[in-house]
């Protein structure tokens, strides 16, 4: 049975998850996000039912929420695959170069730039991003991830970022990918 929601919670949640580029609400998010996350947790079922009436599905992942429109028009298959490849490449790059990359991890952009310096694999990956130098391109990558809500700039002066809970959204797709290992190859990572 739906219960009453606190005043303004549904409006705040809807606006937060539909406007701008950051479409995630992380439990360790910046500003008022963490508090909003806790409030939504306390009334999750009611929020879900009310949002369903508005045509949105409230998706709850590991310590994060996002919305999916029930009227969302289907995207082309090749576009979806392209997006998946981009996501996998981004997470693979970050996991390779940041120790313990995952929810709550702090990392320094400066140290990351130093680690990828003269790494041909990293250069190939960063070629798709804007900037003259690898440092600029890395900045473009990180700004994009920050805009989308996967990381947050924890300390602008020291150029430190924190990985937000929304990263589990990407990890979920990674977990579902299964590799068909050929005989004689390394660990079967499924």
């Amino acid at each position, binding site marked *: 049975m739906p219960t009453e929601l606190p005043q303004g919670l549904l409006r705040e949640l809807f606006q937060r998850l539909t406007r*701008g580029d950051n479409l995630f609400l992380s439990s360790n998010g910046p500003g008022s996000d963490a508090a909003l996350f806790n409030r939504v947790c306390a009334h999750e079922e009611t929020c879900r039912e009310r949002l369903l009436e508005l045509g949105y599905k409230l998706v709850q992942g590991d310590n994060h929420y996002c919305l999916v429109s029930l009227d969302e028009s289907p995207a082309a298959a090749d576009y979806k695959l392209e997006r998946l490849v981009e996501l996998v490449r981004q997470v693979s790059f970050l996991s390779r170069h940041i*120790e*313990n990359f995952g929810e709550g991890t702090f990392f320094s952009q400066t140290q990351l730039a130093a680690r990828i310096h003269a790494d041909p694999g990293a250069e190939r990956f960063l070629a798709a991003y804007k900037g003259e130098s690898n440092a600029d391109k890395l900045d473009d990558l990180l700004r994009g991830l920050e*805009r989308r809500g996967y990381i947050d700039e924890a300390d602008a002066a020291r150029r430190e970022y924190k990985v937000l809970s929304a990263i589990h959204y990407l*990890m979920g*797709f990674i977990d579902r*990918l299964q590799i068909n290992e050929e005989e004689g190859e390394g660990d079967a990572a*499924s």
Partner: protein
Amino acid sequence: MGKTQEDAFFAVFMRGPRQALRLFFKYRARSLRADDVAALEQERCDAVDIQRLQAAGFLESDEGELCLDPRAERFLEDMLQAGDGPQLGWLREQLERLERWTRVHQDKPELRERAAREIGRILRSCRTHLRAQVVDLQRAVDYDFRTEPQIEAKELKLQWHLDSCQALGDLVRTLGATLREDPFFVTTQDREVLQRRERLLAELTRAHESLIEALQRISDYLNRVRRDAARIRKLLRLGDLIERMEFTARTNALQVADDLEGPALRGMSIHSVLDPERLDEHPDWVERVLKRLGHRTGGRKAERVILPVDAEPLDAEPIIDPGEVLEAFRRQDKDLFAFLSVLETEDGLLTVDQVVTLYCNLLSNEQAGGYLDIGPMKEAGAWAYATVDPHPSNAH
């Protein structure tokens, strides 16, 4: 802690009591008489110094036998890092001493009084230390999980904590069984011993519950670490497959991609100062901007959100690319506001309100802002604006 560091630590105490304190700490597993101390180290500890330590609460006495106060012992262990991690060896030793003294009590009537005192002391010491050991274990587990940067080392440490936790749990159970079943505890009438036994049994129950929680937490951490390690290995492998163009052939990527929905499919949002109806009439304008910014609609119709007048501004890319506007601005000589007033866009000239909005957006654009030199104020009709020179003398 090395020998010199131990010397440095004990140097904080006065010379007289210092030697006695060090000796009692060294032999803290048992109680001592003054002549025991002298015999062990062939040095006489001044009785006055020992009394000073008793008065200060460092030592406690029972029928002429002395030992460190449990709190003092704990403090010294922490300071000298002699108490790292769960002291399984210590608890095991106390259990063995307990079993020895209960046998002494049973077999040597002449030593029963002393045996009872030792047993009482052991019970009290166990109770004091056990809670601290369990707390230390829990803290060490959380600390290693949070701070150890290497996944392999983290897994090893957690596994070690798991083994230690299980071993500590076994000792707790053994000690509890001894307290309940040993003939000494079943038959003794010594009120103080019985009281300490009850308190220790209560502490053992609490420790048992805490250790179960700790075991569960360590198991959860281990599962997460192992899952993360496996995921990282998988990610590296997936990255290699993508590089070798084998991603779709060697994985179920097509199936997973088909399930993509929600934020994963939303590359970016844009906003425009142009009339939404004009954008509806010219969908190619949106595609053109997205292409300029390196994105595409993916064959989907863009969702349009019309904000109320008093809505907070979106953090989104404007449909008018600020980079292109600024490049064009620098190629000519008018100041920024005048330039925008005659700027030709897809929709023709901008209205005054659109000029003002775009002017403000450009000045607040974090990438462009550092390159713009703000000059003196000027007026244009109802608006007063700061002039922005396209060719500043101190260009960045």
